[in-house]
Structure formats: structure tokens, C-alpha cells
């Protein structure tokens, strides 16, 4: 093979390789671009039906009901607009807490109940020692009181 031909072949392979890689990536992204749907999205009919999808939001305060006998747990996912009750059986991540972000994978039934097969906790970008968090919480409560 001539040098010029070899060079052309290399460039062609590189371009094809890159394009194929880009296609795969775009395809992977298309399905995952939306990593999760909020309860509002679900009520707006944006989430897939009869297919598993991820539901994301906050665990509503005071909504966690844990079974004493097994690993069954019930809680409500909210985005401060709509709410969806979720049932799950399994081990929960350490950051699964009331008022914290959560992403669950599963199916929605006819009664708008979500049966999750996987629960992931989403954490926020804030990092601080507990004393500081407590102080901030107290300051916020104080500010709210003085407003009233």
C-alpha cells in the first residue's frame, strides 16, 4: 500500500471510529438525558407508561413508614407541587432521610402508586460541620419567628 493510501486509510478509520463512538454516546445520552422525572412531570404525563422509569424528588417529612418485620418501607416523594407514594423493599442508602433528595426506579400503577425496585439518595452540594448546620437551622427558625 502506498504511503498516501495508508494515510488516507488511517484518517478514514479514525473518522468512522469517532462517528460511531459519538453515535453510541448520543444514543446513551438520549435515554439518560432525563435521569429522573419529578412528580409534576409524572402528573403531566411526561413519564413513560407501562415501563420502568426513575422518579425523583424529596422524601416528604414525616412520610417514612418502616416495617418492623421486614425491609418494606413506604414514603412519599414530593417536589413541593405534586406527591407520589412509593413502596420499596430492600436496603436503603445511608443518606435516605426525610427532607432529602431521592431517586427511585420502578413502575407506576393505576392508582398512581409507585413500586420501586431501587432507591438512590441524592445529596446536596452543602458541606458543613453539624454545629454549623444546627446554628443555621436555629437562625432560620428565629428569622421565621420574627417575621410572624
Amino acid at each position, binding site marked *: 500500500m502506498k504511503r498516501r493510501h495508508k494515510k488516507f486509510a488511517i484518517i478514514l478509520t479514525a473518522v468512522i471510529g469517532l462517528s460511531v463512538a459519538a453515535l453510541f454516546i448520543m444514543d446513551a445520552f438520549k435515554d439518560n438525558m432525563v435521569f429522573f422525572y419529578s412528580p409534576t412531570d409524572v402528573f403531566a404525563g411526561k413519564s413513560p407508561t407501562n415501563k420502568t422509569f426513575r422518579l425523583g424528588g424529596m422524601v416528604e417529612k414525616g412520610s417514612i413508614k418502616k416495617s418492623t418485620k421486614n425491609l418494606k418501607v413506604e414514603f412519599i416523594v414530593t417536589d413541593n407541587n405534586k406527591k407520589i407514594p412509593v413502596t420499596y423493599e430492600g436496603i436503603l442508602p445511608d443518606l435516605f432521610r426525610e427532607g432529602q433528595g431521592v431517586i427511585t426506579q420502578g413502575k407506576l400503577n393505576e392508582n398512581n402508586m409507585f413500586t420501586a425496585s431501587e432507591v438512590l439518595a441524592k445529596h*446536596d*452540594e452543602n*458541606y458543613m460541620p453539624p454545629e454549623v448546620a444546627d446554628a443555621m437551622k436555629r437562625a432560620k427558625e428565629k428569622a421565621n419567628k420574627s417575621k410572624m
Partner: protein
Amino acid sequence: MNITKYAAPVVFYPLAGKLIPWFAWATGITLTIGLIMGLFIAPTDYQQGESYRIMFIHVPSAWMSMLVYVVMATAGAVALAWKTRLSEMLATACAPIGASFTLIALITGAIWGKPMWGAYWVWDARLTSELVLLFLYLGFMALQASIDDPRRAARAAAILALVGVINIPIIHFSVEWWNTLHQPASVSKISAPSIHPSMLWPLLINAVGFHLFFATTVLMRMRTEVLIRERHKSWIADIVGVKP
């Protein structure tokens, strides 16, 4: 002063040789301070307990994975435009270091994700684009290795690096553009960082340490590149200590 003078491999080789020990010591001292502060002094996090300490290596290596890529692509662009040998060598030296930082970010992130999120890996936009970055580095190295002529290899790899630059803003903004499991940025946001100063300091010190580490190893790798690429030049004989 003429900066381009230092871009001549014959000047660069001994200069880098003198600089490396200084950078190496600075790296060692900075990272020791950063690690002591991160593991012993920084307080427990209110949400994540002690597990957040993985952040002190995860975040700086993720930053470096992107910075090294930008350096590599810029060096590649300079090499394409002006055919400067040293910038070709810089781009070549960057690739394995950048791949290493990416790998550290991915591994530490996975280990951190398991206890906090409940999963080692998810295909969200942030994690996927960082994985694409690793493949870009590996592709750069593979492409360069597959072409025999070093100058043509450098040019082909530089084009690949430039195309891949698009991934850098995607990584950075992925957490804002799409719903991701990964949390948004804590430090590089416009308002004040949402990390308490007692936790921010070890993070920033480690970040400085990682920059210094990059400087150290990139100079080491570039010196080897100089030896290989300039082996037919007469001054190489003086350096290796054999008179021709």
C-alpha cells in the same frame, strides 16, 4: 526576554531537570498538609458523616482531569498551528496523566457513591461525560501509538484532542443542564462556596498539590519525550554522557 528560547528542546531538557526536584518537594509538602487537614482536622459532615472525606481527593482529581485535557488540547492546537516540537511533546505527556486523574475521579466517586447514593455507578450525564473523557484520553494515546511517524502521530492526535474539547463544558454544566444524581458544584459556583471553610481549606490545598504534581510528572514525561524525539541531534550525546 524571549520565551520561545525555552521552547527549544535543547534548552528545555536541562531546565526541566533543574525544576523537577523543586516541584516534587512542593507537591510532597502540599499534599502532606492537605491530607493531614482533610483526614484529621476537618470536622465531620452534618449529612454524610466521615464519608465525605473522599471529596478531598475526588474533587481535585476531577478538576485536574478537565484542566489537563484543556492543556493537552491547547498544546495540540499550538503544535498544529506553529509546528512546535515541544508543544507536541507536552500534549503527548499530558494524556497518561490526564487519564490517571480521570480514573482517580471515577474510582473514588464510585466508592463514595456506594454508601451515599446506594450505587457505585449510574448512567447520569455527569458520570457518563466523565467516562467519555477517559475514553478521549485513551483514544488520544491509542491514535498516537498507531502512527509510526511521530510528527504525523502528534498532528492526528491533536485533531482528536480538539474535537473532544466539546466534552469539557458538557462535563462542567451537566449537573445544571440535566437531571442528574450527581449534586451540583459546591466551589465553582458564582455565589459563595457551599462548603464550610474548615472543609474548603483541605480541598483547596489538595487542589494546589495536584497542580504541582501535574507539573512535576509532566516535566518528567516531557524530558523522556525529548530524548526519544531528538535522539539524532548531536546535543543528546552530551546529555547522555557519551561523546560521539
